[in-house]
């Protein structure tokens, strides 16, 4: 039987009391917040209870609330094929040292979904069987979907902040002109443009930041 978010929340609240927060007014999608340490127990209950039967973990993601609040909120979208109802569960974590139990023992889908959150938000999942980066390379620094993430400027000397080609060409032209003027000033005999020595290429393959 399809249950409303209120009924689902009431069942979870009855089973876990304080660990389950209030149901937020369902303006769009109703959700409730769970104490991070209890997330696995609550989710296992939501899956195993026959009247709830949330067999499908649709999505695991996170939202970073920097700089307004020093919080990262984990967002779990659950759905039940049997009863055709859904609920959103959230968990609030501090931004520093964010960590909570993995849901891999409850739903296998959590394995890959949590790896993505770990990679892009820097949330550690305790008891995850394979917590490696998945989108970014293993030696990447930082977690790109955090709001205060700063690009490192490059990766293995491959720059990712480059000026437009036109700006770069103008800079090269100016370097040529400046070199020509400099040689004209130092040489006693003024060099015509045709005999001016070629300007040196910008050092180090033009690493522009």
């Amino acid at each position, binding site marked *: 039987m399809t249950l409303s978010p209120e009924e689902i929340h009431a069942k979870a609240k009855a089973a876990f009391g304080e660990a389950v927060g209030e149901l937020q007014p369902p303006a*769009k999608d109703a959700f409730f917040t769970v104490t991070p340490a209890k997330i696995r127990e609550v989710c296992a209950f939501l899956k195993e209870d026959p009247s709830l039967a949330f*067999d499908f973990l649709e999505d695991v*993601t996170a939202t970073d609330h920097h700089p307004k609040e020093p919080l990262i909120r984990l967002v779990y979208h659950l759905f039940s094929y049997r009863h055709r109802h859904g609920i959103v569960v959230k968990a609030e974590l501090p931004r520093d040292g964010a960590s909570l139990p993995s849901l891999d023992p409850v739903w*296998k889908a959590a394995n890959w*979904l949590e790896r993505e959150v770990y990679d*892009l938000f820097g949330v550690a999942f305790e008891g995850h069987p394979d917590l*490696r980066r998945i989108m970014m390379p*293993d*030696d990447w620094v930082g977690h790109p979907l955090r709001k205060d993430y700063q690009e490192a400027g490059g990766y293995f000397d491959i720059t990712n902040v480059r000026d437009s080609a036109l700006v770069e060409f103008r800079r090269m032209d100016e370097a040529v002109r400046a070199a020509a003027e400099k040689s004209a000033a130092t040489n006693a005999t003024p060099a015509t443009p045709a005999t001016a020595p070629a300007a040196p290429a910008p050092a180090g393959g033009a690493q522009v930041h």
Partner: protein
Amino acid sequence: MDELVIQKLGPLSDEEMVLNMGPQHPSTHGVIRFVVKGDGEVIKVALPVVGYLHRAIEKIGEIVTFPGFMPYTDRADYLAAMFANEGYALAVEKLMGLEAPPRAQYCRAISCELNRIASHLISVGTMGQDIGALTPFVHALRERETLNDLIEELCGARLTYHYHRIGGVAFDVPDGWAEKTLRFLDRFERILDEYDRLLTWNEIYVKRLADLGVIPAEMAIDYGLVGPNLRASGVDWDLRRDLPYGCYRDFQFQVPVGKGWVGKVGDCFDRYYVRILEMRESVKIVRQALEKLPAGETMHPKIPKKVKPPAGEAWARVESARGEMGYYVTADGVSEKAQRVRIRTGSYLAMGVVEPLSRGMMIADLVALIASLDVVAPEIDR
């Protein structure tokens, strides 16, 4: 850089070797990589390594305005971009508390179902190609060309459509387009019978795919498989029928479910054949939609120039060619930009099933398994 992958593979015995497949490999459908530990041809473990096509689309969603993100959704799944458009449009419309007008919803359904056929044609064609039948791919692409022409006439683009907009669709159906489409559908149904003769019931093809990579229903649900991959495992679930969005309530169609036509339920053949049957259903839906197409606007009249939804968060999902595609969009009510855009895609979760399923498989069968899951790299990495 691969230390962690090698560590995960574990120690090698004398007979075992490590084989690297991809990321540039003709059978990996874009840039996907597998690191295979095998004993000769038999796979001990195959680890998918993804991320080579990661373009940070979700991060871009926080940088550009709400309407400005729509073209980026095309790139999330370039083989079925209509669905990516529609999912995002539905999520933002849900945030704003409005619905597209009826004619726009019909245009969405028509364009989506045509796109589903085009996407499934690629899937079916590459499926044959990956296991050595090169001809069907050319046949499939021939029909897809006509479809691309039709869609181009509708929205001006052949691949990255940017057709669905927040509050409606960009263009109305052009004059004479419906007749052209109907003529194509008449022809296409006969062509589908031809595919069945050419490929589906070909004895070599059937023997190659039967009982291969069987995914039981519980496993499919547990690993979060969606769409044709889920239905092939015998789970009778389709968002269009069971939780209809847009105008899908108005149409009569069947939802094909895997029956174990030539072997066990949920094998590679079931995943292939479910897609063939889905194309037939899409033809039905397009016919009905063109017939019932209501008059009226194709754009909601109250869409402001600067889209600024009230604070909140919305989760919207559509039944894409690769299964359920979910968009989670949050707004703070002040900014013209989303605070977070999350795209949940079928291909990403389908890749998670490769590692447990590939144990004990032959290396050549891994190629068939990937093809049957119909994963596309841009949708995995986004």
